[in-house]
């Protein structure tokens, strides 16, 4: 066991899977000689050569659509989208082709590809290097939308995605890449892509989050316990599509209170769906309104420091919501 960062986990997963299966290859902008904008593919072109680590032209559409065709033909592509802010040229490839190929061919044609997508704010990336945009894809049946919050999951979920027979969009938060370290097994392991994870157990309140805000949520829960003696059950969604409803419903049945924390702005973020199915399927369990900690409904994260700080969720904002929900 070695102490690893989130990006170490990604890099290890890619190397291990490429060694295990020669059908696995990487394609994206700057993934080769530069080893990726964030160095997620560092060292891979040296080991596997430019045939399996392809520095693509500047065209997200063909990065993903060529991967669909290759996956259809038995390859296991891992495409990289440098920033989710620039995924729009691949919108047709992802939502109309990858998500629908299996369905439209009655299962006779499939595309088991993985798309690694860097998302998230809080690093002064500004309007076009901070976006989330998960809703566009969490809304599309046929796609798996994954979002690990720990180095352990970063490795185990990426390996599982590469071996999964469905098109997987794997969202990685740029602020998580090097901010947390944990011991993760050097050997082969997979994470079940169908299951959310209960990170802390508690009876007073259920809080659901994912990705970067999961870490903020855990810090807030910690403080709620030490400062107010409130026990929060923290659920890490891990998979945004299809959602593991049962884990959330069981927890709410126990705590009767739900807060959802998302970095995305409020309207139609993943929190909307979670609130909706809980209000539909567990209404009787609820003792308080379902609160959402979210960014304000503005077009993107503005650059200037005070504006970004105002926009982003924080431990304080999350604690406010937790308090308000338990006090209700």
């Amino acid at each position, binding site marked *: 066991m070695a102490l690893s960062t989130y990006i170490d986990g990604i890099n290890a997963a890619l190397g291990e899977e490429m060694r295990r299966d020669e059908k696995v290859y990487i394609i994206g902008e700057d993934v080769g000689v530069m080893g990726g904008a964030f160095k997620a593919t560092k060292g891979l072109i040296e080991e596997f050569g430019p045939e399996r680590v392809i520095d693509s032209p500047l065209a997200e559409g063909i990065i993903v*659509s060529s991967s669909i065709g290759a996956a259809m*033909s038995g390859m296991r592509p891992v495409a990289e989208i440098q920033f989710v802010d620039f995924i729009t040229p691949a919108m047709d490839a992802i939502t109309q082709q990858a998500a629908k190929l299996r369905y439209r061919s009655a299962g006779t044609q499939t595309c088991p590809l993985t798309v690694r997508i860097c998302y998230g704010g809080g690093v002064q990336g500004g309007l076009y290097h901070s976006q989330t945009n998960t809703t566009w894809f969490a809304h599309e049946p046929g796609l798996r939308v994954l979002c690990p919050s720990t180095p352990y999951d970063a490795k185990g979920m990426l390996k599982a995605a590469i071996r999964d027979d469905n098109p997987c969009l794997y969202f990685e938060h740029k602020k998580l890449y090097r901010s947390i370290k944990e011991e993760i097994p050097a050997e082969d392991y997979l994470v079940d892509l169908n299951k959310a994870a209960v990170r802390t157990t508690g009876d007073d309140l259920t809080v659901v989050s994912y990705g970067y805000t999961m870490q903020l949520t855990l810090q807030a829960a910690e403080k709620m316990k030490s400062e107010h003696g409130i026990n929060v059950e923290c659920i890490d969604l891990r998979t945004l599509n*299809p959602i593991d409803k049962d884990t959330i419903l069981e927890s709410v049945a126990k705590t009767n209170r739900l807060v959802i924390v998302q970095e995305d702005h409020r309207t139609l973020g993943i929190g909307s769906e979670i609130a909706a199915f809980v209000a539909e399927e567990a209404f009787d369990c609820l003792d308080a309104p379902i609160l959402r900690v979210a960014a304000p409904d503005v077009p993107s994260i503005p650059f200037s420091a005070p504006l970004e700080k105002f926009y982003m969720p924080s431990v304080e904002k999350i604690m406010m919501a937790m308090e308000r929900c338990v006090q209700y």
Partner: protein
Amino acid sequence: MATKTKERPANAAAPATKPQNSTNGSTSFPAEKLKQLYTLMLKCRTMEERIRVLFKQGRFSGNYYAAVGQEATEVGCCVDLRPTDTIAPSHRDFIANLIKGTPLNLMISQIYARKTSPDQGRSSPAHCGYAPLNIITPASTIAAQLNIGTGVALANKMKKNDDVVVAFSGEGSTSLGFWHEAVNFAGVHQLPIVYVIQNNLWAESVSVKLQTRVEDLSVKAQAYGIPGITVDGNDVIAVYRVASEAILRARNGDGPTVIEAKTYRWYGHSEIDPAKYRNPEEVEQWKAKDPIPFMERYLTKHNLWNEDFKKGIVDEFAKEMDAAIEFAEKAPFPEPEEALDHVYSFSVRDRELNRKTWLPTVLK
């Protein structure tokens, strides 16, 4: 560089002045191949005219996009493909299935949206694929099939096999960014793929003059440093020769080719389009260039054709069509709940049908 490859007269001037047709180019083909080209065109024509009647009779719902008038291009490009080669078709290329060998019962089941169709009734009638023969089930998104086909070509190259991809599109499709990203990528990586532009002058109601300022669309290949050639799309021998050269180049690892086949869509964009926007004279001029009589005259010159030969083909294929139509009309529709299948590699029926709470979708 584009200009250096001898295969492409398609610099801005050449193809316009000197389009490829069967009277130029030396190659001559065996009699059996010439007959095969003709026979396939005739079957395609017979099938689509029959399908159009079925639609007018209201025997299937949805819509259909006939390639009548364009058979020479489809046949010339697909006749020699191997089962392991891939075709990336669009809405206009239903007949490519017949040429490559998709069983007729399945094709007509597609028209009738029955459980027995290759996609079990999910796609609309003209959007037919067939996995066993590597024909991609198309989306309706124009040009998107080119990009998926390009990925198949990338896989072929990575697997170091010599399979190729033939990707069809219309001239209207060349205006989309998809087209550009696909061909550019194939150029950079010298992929084994042939992009066939069927320039039938119209994209629904929009004239090619409003799609692009160039006369010959094969010129566009120059932007990607690959060979481009314009061919008479109603001359099956010319198309066959040009396509064979391009396919051979692809098989040999010498990269992609753009072929513009100048042809014409006889009928409306679809069966519900009266195509009032076209000048009737234009239609008549092109019907006079019908690829089938054109080939009959050529075959006759070489004593390879007579009325009986034609009648034999038509009569036999008409019987096959009757049988396929009967098969399809007797075939069952899919069960309603099948709408929940093939969403993921795992079933979602339980998830969708056995909710803890009330769910309207269980209702039949």
